[in-house]
């Protein structure tokens, strides 16, 4: 039994004291930054990348993965208790979770959120175990044409699922692709857009851009809006949901798991999109939609389950095809590259310890989270009392050290400061930064595969249409675009987003 052997290997990797420690460290850091608004997993992982240099690759990935899904748990705590989303994926949890808290039922809301997250996380991890090896096997058959088409599909999906204007999301993606081309061209050793700076010949560092766009720009945006954080914490007790809560939450948790798992796999989806979709779905299906927004437990159970499920399944395209589906996964690519592992379908066969160790660690991490989080809620709440004016200089300082320590490069720091200013400008112009970051990672890969595909076909561009897998992927991309542009669908989609 192959699967069984693989799982045993995974457990052997995870159940060492050091890896259990890194997993615990990851989920605790994740919960911490999840609770704190204004510090996200992208920024934290970017910051910790250089620190993981000295670790074994599997330990590094186990810890970084823990940060991502740990943040999904933490985000719900501040959403429910303070009406303040710790992460964007918990925005909808505020709607009903905080209403429940105001009615003295904070404990039930927190309990349902944690247990739902646990269920969603475990079920999604099982999906990875079942489907990832098969998908990786398919991925091994991919040639350059198939990879190019897959990336086109990925970028289209990312654009379709992004918030805000479609056109702007497309433009941000193209801008990201262009920024990704800065540096040495691998085929001709020709330095592009280097402007004579030797630091640029290696390309723009992903961490540099991510820290600037997500970390520094976010701080400026938060400072522009005046701080208004009222810590109105009611006492939290009775964390275990009542029998009625169980009955009301079971179906939403199951639906949230399915929806979240699906949206997590899609590029550009990820946790935030999943929670929005799950909330909309629950409200649609409810026999009493008017209760939503006034403390409906389903409105907490569905989205919180979905965002955790999505956080897990978004690892599937990364581990099987080497394609990042969101900025956090793009950072994981960076983490693997630091250790000399090229992400792609060969990871499952060439680095089985890393592959299965990471997957099994997700289950263990989820278990740690549900055991740790509920008793520690009081501690997280106290942490929220730290005012932002003391917090942001610290975030800024850690970000700056993270960027510098990656290459000991002063130029990188100045570039990050520049991208921070650019990021703030883009936020002001209502342009989402996430598609740019995806483009940045995929830019060189796309060009590489486009060139190779056309070289093999001697310049015949129809190669993308004559290979069946490539054609199917491109047709899927076109179908997605048509769906979004068609007016009827767009109207329902707008309605969905408004709710």
């Amino acid at each position, binding site marked *: 039994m192959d699967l069984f052997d693989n799982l045993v290997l995974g457990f052997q990797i995870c159940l060492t004291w050091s890896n259990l420690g890194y997993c615990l460290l990851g989920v605790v850091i994740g919960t911490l930054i999840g609770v704190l608004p204004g510090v996200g997993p992208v920024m934290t992982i970017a910051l910790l990348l250089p620190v993981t240099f000295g670790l074994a690759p599997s330990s590094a990935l186990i810890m970084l993965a823990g940060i991502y899904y740990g943040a999904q748990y933490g985000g719900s705590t501040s959403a429910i208790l303070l009406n303040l989303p710790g992460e964007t994926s918990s925005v909808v949890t505020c709607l009903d979770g905080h209403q429940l808290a105001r009615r003295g039922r904070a404990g039930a809301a927190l309990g349902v959120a944690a247990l739902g997250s646990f269920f969603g996380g475990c079920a999604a991890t099982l999906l990875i175990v079942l489907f990832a090896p098969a998908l990786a096997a398919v991925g091994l058959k991919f040639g350059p044409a198939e990879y190019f088409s897959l990336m086109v599909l990925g970028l289209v999906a990312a654009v379709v699922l992004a918030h805000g204007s479609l056109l702007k999301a497309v433009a941000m993606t*193209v801008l990201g692709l262009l920024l990704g081309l800065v540096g040495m061209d691998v085929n001709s050793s020709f330095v*592009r857009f280097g402007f004579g700076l030797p630091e640029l010949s290696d390309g723009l560092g992903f961490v540099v851009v991510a820290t600037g766009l997500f970390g520094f720009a976010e701080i400026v945006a938060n400072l522009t809006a005046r701080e208004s954080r009222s810590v109105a914490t009611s006492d939290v007790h009775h964390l275990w949901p009542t029998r009625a809560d169980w009955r009301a939450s079971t179906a939403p948790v199951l639906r949230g798991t399915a929806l979240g798992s699906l949206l997590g796999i899609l590029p550009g989806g990820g946790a935030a999109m999943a929670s929005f979709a799950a909330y909309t779905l629950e409200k649609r299906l409810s026999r009493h939609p008017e209760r939503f927004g006034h403390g409906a437990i389903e409105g907490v159970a569905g989205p919180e389950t979905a965002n955790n499920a999505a956080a897990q399944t978004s690892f599937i395209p990364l581990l099987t095809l080497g394609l990042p589906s969101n900025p956090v996964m793009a950072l994981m690519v960076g983490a693997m590259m630091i250790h000399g592992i090229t992400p792609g379908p060969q990871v499952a066969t060439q680095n089985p310890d890393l592959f299965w160790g990471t997957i099994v660690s997700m289950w263990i991490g989820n278990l740690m989270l549900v055991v740790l989080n509920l008793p520690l809620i009081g501690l997280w709440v106290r942490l929220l009392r730290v005012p932002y004016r003391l917090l942001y200089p610290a975030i800024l300082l850690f970000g700056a050290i993270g960027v510098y320590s990656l290459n000991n490069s002063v130029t990188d720091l*100045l570039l990050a*400061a520049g991208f921070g200013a650019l990021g703030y400008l883009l936020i002001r112009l209502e342009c989402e930064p996430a598609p740019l970051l995806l483009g940045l990672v995929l830019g060189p890969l796309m060009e590489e595969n486009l060139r190779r595909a056309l070289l093999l076909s001697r310049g015949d561009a129809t190669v993308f249409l004559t290979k069946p897998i490539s054609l199917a992927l491109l047709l899927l991309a076109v179908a997605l675009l048509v769906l979004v542009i068609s007016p009827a669908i767009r109207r329902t989609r707008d309605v969905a987003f408004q709710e």
Partner: protein
Amino acid sequence: MPRNGTRFDCKNLQAGALFAGAGAGFAAVASGYPLGTAARMGPGWFPLVLGLLLVALGALVALAGGAGAERPASDQPAASPRDEAASAIGWRPLLHVTLSVTAFALLIEPAGLVAASVALVLLSASGGWEFRWTEATALAGSLAALVVGLFAYALHIPINVWPV
């Protein structure tokens, strides 16, 4: 978030101009690189095509952004307080945050981690809403001690602590 038409159009116009300008810049530089043929692409081919595409997208954003593909403003998740309160550009925080990172960059090699950290914390803290010298100095001192202990001594990251 203000939903009056003028502000929206203005933002689209600026965003469009930004994209078109960036695209034109990339395309102009790329057109100076060897282009090659489709079968054997040179380093200039892909960036030139993408740059021109970005110019076209920028024009579309500027022109059609108001109607067409624009979704209602309310679909933005009310993720952070900035969505409600941001109406003026925060020049002050922008300046302070950018300057503080720049100062850190310029100080880290000649003056070391301690001086660079203190400069970053003081410069960034003074860009916030409530700034108190005593509090900021205490924060700068304790954060500097923390990062020196954590990064230089615990994690052994090669970094100058004191001026060289």
